[in-house]
């Protein structure tokens, strides 16, 4: 039925070549349009039926680059489904020092619980009105979209966020005394911008708490600032990440502990970061509405307990 026809491996190579040369899609959530290679099969005998078209798309060995290796997880930049769609792979490897059965259970639990929280939160934040944080417009808050989970292997594939962590931004802003010659896209250039970023972060945490999610490990490395696309006005969207220790709760105490953990993270970064954190609380209280004052009172208690504990050694 089919006359001259390339072999499948030729097709694959063709496809791979044309696809590999594509640039990365950038920080897109939506998957970019698929790219195809078209091949016409020419029929050998008359009368010729309309030629069927084979479209081949293939990426047998996606690039997997280790970007971070934490205590808990290995983070890779890779692709998902199509070679032009960037993704983050968070892999929790098994730990030799843990009992194998306990280890497998813990990995599975953390994996599922993180992915579930991400999926739920993403929906809640998408539908909530607290999308645009701050009067300048722009810079809402979200969490990475989940693409795939293999809990047995300890893998989550999720949206790749192009940008920086708050930690990186604070390091650049507070540790460099001279202004950066080429400040990275997400890095605020003035003191005022930096303070404004802090209020937005407060509002972002409030948005998370408003949908009753407790982060559980709120550090400056677990808040990212998405780089706005070139030329776009407004601020980069805030992206909360790393929900492995997250939980669903509406308790003031849990919310206050989230804030306390973040406060400790700020203070340990740089002395000046303490004054930055005050702005975070301003944004938070405003974003929380009535409940804000309650959580603030709790925070004072949590701080007090923390001091007492450290005094007792």
């Amino acid at each position, binding site marked *: 039925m089919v006359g001259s026809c390339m072999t499948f491996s030729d097709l694959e190579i063709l496809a791979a070549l044309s696809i590999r040369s594509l640039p990365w899609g950038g920080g897109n*959530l939506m998957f970019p349009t698929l790219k195809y290679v078209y091949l016409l099969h020419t029929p050998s005998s008359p009368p010729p039926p*309309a030629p069927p*078209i084979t479209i081949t798309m293939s*990426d047998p060995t996606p690039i997997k680059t280790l970007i971070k290796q934490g205590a808990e997880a290995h983070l890779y930049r890779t692709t998902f489904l199509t070679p032009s769609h960037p993704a983050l792979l968070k892999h929790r490897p098994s730990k030799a020092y843990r009992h194998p059965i306990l280890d497998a259970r813990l990995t599975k639990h953390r994996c599922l619980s993180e992915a579930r929280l991400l999926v739920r939160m993403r*929906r809640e934040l998408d*539908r909530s009105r607290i999308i645009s944080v701050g009067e300048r*417009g722009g810079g809402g808050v979200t969490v990475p*979209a989940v693409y795939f989970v293999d809990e*047995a292997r300890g893998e989550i594939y999720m949206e790749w966020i192009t940008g920086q962590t708050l930690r990186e931004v604070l390091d650049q802003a507070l540790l460099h005394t001279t202004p950066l010659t080429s400040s990275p896209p997400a890095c605020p250039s003035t003191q005022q911008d930096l303070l404004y970023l802090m209020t937005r972060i407060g509002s972002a945490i409030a948005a998370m708490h408003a949908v009753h999610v407790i982060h559980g490990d709120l550090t400056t490395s677990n808040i990212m600032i998405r780089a*706005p696309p070139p030329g776009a006005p407004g601020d980069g969207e805030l992206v909360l990440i790393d929900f492995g220790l997250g939980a669903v709760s509406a308790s003031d105490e849990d919310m206050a502990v989230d804030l306390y953990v973040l406060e400790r993270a700020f203070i340990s970064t740089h002395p000046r970061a303490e004054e930055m954190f005050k702005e975070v609380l301003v944004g938070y209280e405003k974003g929380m509405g009535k409940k804000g004052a309650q959580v603030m009172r709790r925070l004072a208690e949590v701080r007090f307990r923390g001091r007492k504990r450290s005094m007792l050694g």
Partner: protein
Amino acid sequence: MAALNLTTLNLPHLPPNSHNVHIAVLKEIRNAEHLRSQLLAGNDDYEYAFIDASNIISTKHILVAVFKALRGVVEGSDGGPGGLRTRNVHSEIVFSLSPNNNISESFTRFGIVDKTRNLIAIKVEVLTADRTTPTTSLSADAVRQFLATTVEFGESLPFTDEALYGVSDLETVQQRYKYLAINKEVGVVGKAGIKGRQGKKKSADVAQNTSGIGDAQKQKWGEGGEDIQKDLEVWVIGAMVMKIVG
């Protein structure tokens, strides 16, 4: 035999050359009842993932389901985790589309039904250890020939987001994944989405969407339609991967 577009692809994050996936999108089919009866009768020739296209919003939606099913067979075979919850990789693809764990319901909701008009037909060939096709009956040509002679269809569409958007029924998708209900709480879906959305509008992905679906989406959802469509896709994929909807 009518011309038939067939997309053949490999998915990443599976052993290289472990599989080929063949996908056809067939519009205005006239013999859904026959296809379904053969499928139910267990006729091996008809072992395909036959999906009612009205349930599907994008190519990714389909590919995630295929990927999930393939992780079950391909990875499962070499000792890793995996395994199938249903009879074969094709029924598993249909089940993978479901946002919950009810298997029989997943077939009647996402699979072909007697009144199916637009069909997505998927055939997976799992390659043997030496990475060759196990039987020639599964090759792209065999699949194309089978579909072209067995399915009575009006038009064969390419497997693209544009084509799928044209045959999808967004109301059905929202029902299947319980998304409309959620949006109703905050008001009309379009308006709720657009209101607070100034911040998101400028995000990179929106600028990226050059496919021309935009206009159609605007018609469907109003201004900001692309964002709402994208939110829906993110939810749909998350819901099916996590089986999160009761």
